[in-house]
């Protein structure tokens, strides 16, 4: 099987962009899971630090 899916003869060629998008989504999921990031969260989490943005309640 030709694994270079950007080459026209590869059976995966028609799915090249799906594969790229899938890889990017996997990377995002790994980062989210390892960092505790909740994707598309609308929770009312606010942050304040003495040096930076946010406000002190």
């Amino acid at each position: 099987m030709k694994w270079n899916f950007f080459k026209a003869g590869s059976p995966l060629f028609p799915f090249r962009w799906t594969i790229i998008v899938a890889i990017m989504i996997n990377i995002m999921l790994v980062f989210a899971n390892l960092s505790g990031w909740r994707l598309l969260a609308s929770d009312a989490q606010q942050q304040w630090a003495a040096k930076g943005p946010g406000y002190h309640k």
Partner: protein
Amino acid sequence: MELQTSILECPFCNRIVQFSHEDVTLLQHDCGVVLQRNNGRLVEKPIATIQHPVAIIQKGTAGRWNGKSFRVTGRFRAWMNESVYNYWTIIFDDSSIGYLAEGYGIYAVYRKSDLTPSNYTSYQQLKVGEDTNLKKDVSLILVSKNECYRWEMEGEIYIPDDVRKFKTYEFAGEDGSHVEAIVINETVRLFDVFYVPYTTLELTNTRNREPHEQKLNCGQCSKPNVVKTFPFAQSYACKFCGAKHKINEEGRYILDQRSHSGHLENNITIGASGIIKGINYEVIGYALKQEVNEPSSEWKEYTLFNPEEGYAFLSEYNGHWIYVRERGNTPVLPDDRVRQFYYGSESFALFNRYNSRVRHAIGEFPSNIFNDTQRNVREFISPPEMWIYERSDKEGITWFLGEHISRKELQAALGDSIGMPYKVGVGAIEPKGFLNPGKILMVALVASLVLMAVHFLTTLSKENRIIISKSYALDSNSTVSFVTPGFKLDKWRSNLEFEVNAPVSNSWFELTGTLVNVSTGTEYNLEQGVEYYHGVSEGESWAEGSSSATGYLSEIPRGTYYLQINGNGEPGLSSYMDAQKADRFTLEVTYDVSNDRNLGYCLLALLIMPAIQFIWVLIIEKKRWENSPFTP
């Protein structure tokens, strides 16, 4: 087995005559006579010799097949019903003998078969498509029968028996095997046939093909024409008036049908040349064909020729182009009702079925295209390829493989010699947008499984450590505040899950949490409310909210923290009936929890593209199959 040769003396010139193999019985001597070896004696035979070779293979050509080397000793050129075929005698390094049969770009190695032949009369009675029962476990159907009405030779040849004419019957099996029966004087000899691409033979010591052009005058308008690929071209149409000619048994072109054709509108100049699919072709013919059925669609076919690779065609319909070549290794259909089959791993679906006639033509053609109206054609597609099945009871079954070829490729190959017609709709095997829906689903499934596996692996190491799990009572003002002892969060980054449970009924409770980093003072704030209301309205019960809720603090870096918690219940009396304010609440804070919601969102995002592809394929395929009477 050692190669056995025998050395005799020519009875005419007295020079040495040496046969290369014990099975080689006929030889064209240097002095020009054809000698047959018979019981140790040489007898002259009045067999025609080839005057104009018109072939790149010659006596002495060497090659390889199936890991074995062979050399060519000679050939007989057989003139059949609608073809001329070369049977080159080849002797392998292990002294076994066979044929390299070639013609029209098809090459096949013939080896003596171990199968037991049937009586010759059984072959005569067989119809095209019928099983011959040669093999018990595999169906071998008759795909063609030919009669060789004359033949001529050069070099040394293996041809059993004294023969002037012979018949051949070719069989194809569903297991991909091919067998040919050569019937000479009622004796049947079976050969296993192995079709091979020209390039795999690694032929050396070949010669330049010297064409034997036939210059002749049209039988209708008497103007001069040239047939470049004689004797393989079985028909031609006058380039001036379009009158149709066919080749007769004497090898001469005779007028077959008069023509009253007008302007031909061919898009490629006859005589143009260019490299198509890596092969240098010359355009030698053009035909405007029409289906003999409604809607009587018309298409244009251009005949191409290359000395090594033989004939090919360019077929154009509605501005879409297909490159077509006859094939030896082909599908085998058990019967005429097949509407779909697998070849290799691809599924081919019946797209069109028709008989056709030639409306206009100029140039030359490898078969007699002017008598093909009884030939039933079926096209099976799996874009960008098409298998074309042509069948007549008289001429047998022929398969062609069509491949989509882009306008860009053709323009690059033929330059100014080609005029591009406008494209209409989606071509039968145009690869645009085509994806097998089954493959889309498979890719989506595999991608989803990979994503789920990644999620599983990245959540395996989650601590799920409980920081707090306790109940707290509210004071008389329905509030409570406290600060937790310090605790360490040790991962690079992670989350905290707050599960709040308060026994409210038609009331509410709100929790405010502040996570404070002891070292940096950074604060992370969370507000999480709990409310539950219920009642009866117009006889029906209703309820909304819940007495528990979950909130999160995300991406908290490692460090030592404490939590400052404030809990507030509804002050005063509620206006609702059966209201119950919270007098306590339960809080459970867990560190480093997995978040399956991430997986859900990622799966949705992942499936967007396959879903779009699926819908796009449905739209494109609908347009493609608009031209077919066999919409799947």
